[in-house]
């Protein structure tokens, strides 16, 4: 079984983003970029399936600017076998990403596609579900446990009230939640080895997908600020303030 793992290049999770003063977006110049953390979890899960003999090949695919090849290299350094870069400039919406990934899946015929549940830049949480819809496949989002059963899958999902377990008919889409695994760091020898692994270069136009955004971004603004309040000296003062000043007790 081949496993396909789409990965996104995003602003590193440690960076506190700044909104541009003209309201056209957030400052991306000279900002550290990394693989979306949920996608790292997806790559890790695919690698564990391969190491357990359940998967034969792990292919990472990224849609974005030429620099997204660095994100693919990160996946290859973790242990993925090969990469596919689909070049696309500007803001590519989840729906367009899902359409490109459908075309990639049609060509690659994976038994399983693992994606991060959401990207930490646009926080949309859509691509996996959309891809499942377009392929007509089963889906399990927010996975905290994944078991392969022949060509089918048993997935435990993190839901509002606790955990839910579902059985999926393969081929299937799984999106990762935080507790699925802890991604490995790439070792230096593996980083060197990754440089020789193949990355297939494509363009969004190869797949005939229209990238015109459906959502027009009118402006991007700073959220309303919240000022820090006061420090209280002890529990008695805290209770007194909550009761008389804040009125919440």
């Amino acid at each position: 079984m081949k496993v396909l793992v789409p990965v996104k290049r995003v602003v590193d999770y440690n960076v506190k983003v700044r909104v541009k003063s003209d309201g056209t977006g957030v400052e991306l110049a000279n900002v550290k970029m990394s693989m979306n953390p949920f996608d790292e979890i997806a790559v890790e899960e695919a690698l564990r399936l391969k190491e357990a003999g359940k998967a034969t090949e792990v292919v990472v695919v990224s849609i974005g600017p030429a620099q997204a090849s660095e994100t693919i290299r990160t996946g290859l350094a973790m242990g993925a076998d090969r990469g596919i870069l689909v070049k696309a400039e500007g803001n590519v919406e989840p729906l367009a990403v899902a359409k490109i990934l459908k075309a990639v899946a049609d060509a690659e015929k994976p038994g399983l596609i693992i994606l991060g549940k959401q990207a930490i830049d646009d926080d949309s949480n859509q691509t996996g579900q959309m891809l499942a819809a377009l392929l007509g496949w089963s889906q399990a989002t927010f996975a905290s446990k994944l078991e392969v059963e022949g060509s089918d899958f048993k997935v435990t999902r993190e839901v509002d009230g606790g955990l839910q377990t579902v059985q999926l008919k393969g081929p299937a889409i799984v999106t990762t939640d935080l507790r699925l695994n802890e991604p490995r760091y790439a070792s230096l020898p593996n980083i060197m080895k990754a440089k020789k692994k193949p990355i297939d270069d494509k363009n969004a136009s190869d797949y005939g997908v229209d990238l015109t955004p459906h959502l027009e971004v009118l402006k991007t603004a700073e959220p309303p600020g919240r000022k820090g309040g006061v420090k209280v000296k002890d529990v008695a003062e805290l209770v007194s303030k909550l009761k008389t000043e804040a009125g919440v007790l």
Partner: protein
Amino acid sequence: MTTLLIAEHDNASIKDATNKTLTAAAALGADVHVLVAGENAKAAADAASKLAGVKKVLLADNAAYAHDLAEPLAALIVSLAPSYDAFVAPATSRFKNVMPRVAALLDVMQVSEIIKVVSPDTFERPIYAGNAIQTVKSKDAKKVITVRTSTFAAAGDGGSAPVENAAAVADPGLSSFVGEEVAKSDRPELTSAKIIVSGGRAMQSRENFAKYIEPLADKLGAGVGASRAAVDAGYAPNDWQVGQTGKVVAPELYVAIGISGAIQHLAGMKDSKVIVAINKDEDAPIFQVADYGLVADLYQAVPELTEALGKLGK
């Protein structure tokens, strides 16, 4: 022009998230119908019919909708699409799962987790864990929208809409329900609690959550939350997580105990009305958003606080 609100419910009743989403749905300016999909969900449909301003309730009562499986529920919503211009649902785990599937089947871009309806096609939504607010205009003829319920007031009762049955749609049969572990608790749910007490990594163990956080929460009639670090470490179950990728809450009072205040945690609670932080590190970023900060060892301060509240008659 009609809007279809897909209800969050437990078959017996309508969840608070539905009341809040109704406020957002009504702001689109069109008539609102409510879809209740479940199994033996007549009581929930009746409750939905009493919501103020709802014109009609559709009840899809079928075993296929018993367990929130995305494939049959998406197929049902898409079957109703010709009659509606907008599909609105709360951004709960059920609808985060289902609605993008609906959007792709309709070939439209979902607008995720809106916090404000600017006009019927323009919305505000947070990006980068709430560190920026984007205003987006949807060019799609049909809108698919999920609503961050913490920013909308709950609509009340006052309606008497008719309840009609919606025809079930063939289950695509792609997935099936195996089981669930749902925590039973008498405490209020995080997303509707008026007060929340949350613990962080400094709690050190699940036992300490039970010994320090839970008694304080019970004294206040509060819901219990946790930081990602505490959940990752196994001190608290996943459904307690407050943050960018967990639950987003905005209670009257949020008490953060032993929580440093990572960006992704703040994203989930910074809209709370009053924030209290108890942390022994006076430089912890949580103090930058807290209305009242207490620099203290939580293992002393929390039992003291619980006791002081007891003396207040809590």
